[in-house]
């Protein structure tokens, strides 16, 4: 330690007091800002109102046998969630945003003459989502009811999650969203538009879920499976009722029954992501 030889007793005391004050204030600032303070909640600060949201686990079943590939779900999703309409330029350079995508499936089995099949592909809201742990800023996380949420105003646009997602259902906003002026009054006020430079994705229409559960809670009404079956915009718009939404924890719900069907497939099941969207395989036709 460097102590000048000519340090007087008074000067030493002065320095001691000043450095002690600095250290004390730094310690105080640290203690006040420590996240442990936030985490160490006293029992009365814990959630007093347990909501149904935490007992639920939202899931979706898409019956490929019913799907006609009409694309109504894609349009409905775009409209509901204020996803800007794009053209062939975006499609060709891969910057198109499709929260609900419709992929053509090719049947390569020998002698197959079945019609080309379409695969509606929303975010699968995996139970073990690979996109969540890679986010460096906590902008994506899983809610208590199993929705993989994206908080746009927290996202820094690093695109790790986009790379981590094996299904390609996360989209980076390369440009600020634009709409024709005639469309501006038709934007959905319940969903925020996303700025350029953030990743966006399907939310299972969480705003619709919230609006239904919230008004039921306020009015003291209990909800049943029929209230949820066609809650998301894609499910509501499907003319063939191929998309069924609901609570996977409710064994009697249509979606839970569909998930246990022998036709039910989870995409890339071997990765262990445990998607909560089940695609019901098409039955072989001759």
């Amino acid at each position, binding site marked *: 330690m460097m102590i000048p030889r000519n340090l007087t007793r008074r000067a030493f005391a002065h320095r001691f007091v000043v450095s002690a004050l600095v250290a004390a204030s730094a310690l105080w600032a640290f203690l*006040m800002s420590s996240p442990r303070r936030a985490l160490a909640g006293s029992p009365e600060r814990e*959630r*007093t*109102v347990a909501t149904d949201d935490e007992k639920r686990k939202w899931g979706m079943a898409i019956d490929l046998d019913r799907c006609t590939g009409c694309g109504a779900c894609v349009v409905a999703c775009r409209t509901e969630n204020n996803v800007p309409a794009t053209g062939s330029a975006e499609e060709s350079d891969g910057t198109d945003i499709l929260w609900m995508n419709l992929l053509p499936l090719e049947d390569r089995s020998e002698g197959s003459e079945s019609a080309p099949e379409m695969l509606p592909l929303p975010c699968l809201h995996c139970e073990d989502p690979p996109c969540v742990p890679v986010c460096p800023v906590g902008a994506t996380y899983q809610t208590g009811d199993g929705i993989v*949420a994206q908080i*746009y*105003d927290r996202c820094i646009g690093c695109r790790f999650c986009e790379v981590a997602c094996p299904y390609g259902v996360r989209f980076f906003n390369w440009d600020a969203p634009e709409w024709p002026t005639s469309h501006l009054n038709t934007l959905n006020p319940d969903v*925020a538009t996303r700025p350029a430079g953030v990743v966006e994705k399907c939310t299972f229409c969480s705003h619709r879920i*919230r609006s239904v559960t*919230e008004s039921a809670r306020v009015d003291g009404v209990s909800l049943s499976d029929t209230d949820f079956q066609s809650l998301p915009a894609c499910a509501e718009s499907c003319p063939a009722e191929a998309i069924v939404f609901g609570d996977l924890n409710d064994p009697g719900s249509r979606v839970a029954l569909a998930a246990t069907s022998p036709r039910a497939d989870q995409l890339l099941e071997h990765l262990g992501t445990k998607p909560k969207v089940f695609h019901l395989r098409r039955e072989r036709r001759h």
Partner: protein
Amino acid sequence: MGTHRARGRSIFVSILLAGAAVLLFPALQGSTAAHAEGGDSLVAESVCDAQRLKAMQVEDPHLEIEIPAEFDRPFPTLAACESHEAALDPASEGPIQPIAFSHKHHAGDFEIDCQYCHSGTDRSASAGVPSVELCMGCHAQFPAEYDQLEGIQILKEHWENGKSIEWVQIHRLPEHVKFQHQAHIRSKDFGGPEFECQTCHGPVENMDKLYMTPDTKFWQYGLPTQKLEMGWCVKCHRDNGASQDCLTCHY
């Protein structure tokens, strides 16, 4: 030493008194001189002026006032006149609204329930701004003298032209933040605390011109936080055991 200090104090006091006199003189002058005519009697120039002079005469019975017949009417009342003028005052806080609407006059003096006009509060996410029709529901029944007030003229103009009033929004949240009025106002119905409108909107019933009250509190991280800032919302959510899930407000 003692005499020096005493002299210094007396000079200081006299400077203060002189300053106060200089500040008060124009104010006293302004309130009377505007109406003075011919030196002794005060002549009213409008109904509001007449109301003000009558109030002055009650306090000072020797005051001579002159109220022309066309201004000698019971309406609009003095309170209405004062609130109307205060809501137009550019010096007071808050933006000038298209109509000099006073929350103090309606919600304070007449104790009209907030939800009479903002009727969506307990059943929808947004509280809602009343339609011109709702305003006219009361104002169409008022004496014609109320048309003296500029705000009433503008209201009736909108009513006749079938146009809505373009109010300036005060309590505005960014697009990525959603607030549910019904969940907060009705939280007491399902085991939550009871919230007053004033908790977030401030003492609206005392405001002629509406503005957002600056409520700088020191929350537990040692940082100041303003009303309608995220820290302020989160603190209340934490204290009341409400959801702290990001998706509750951001979607």
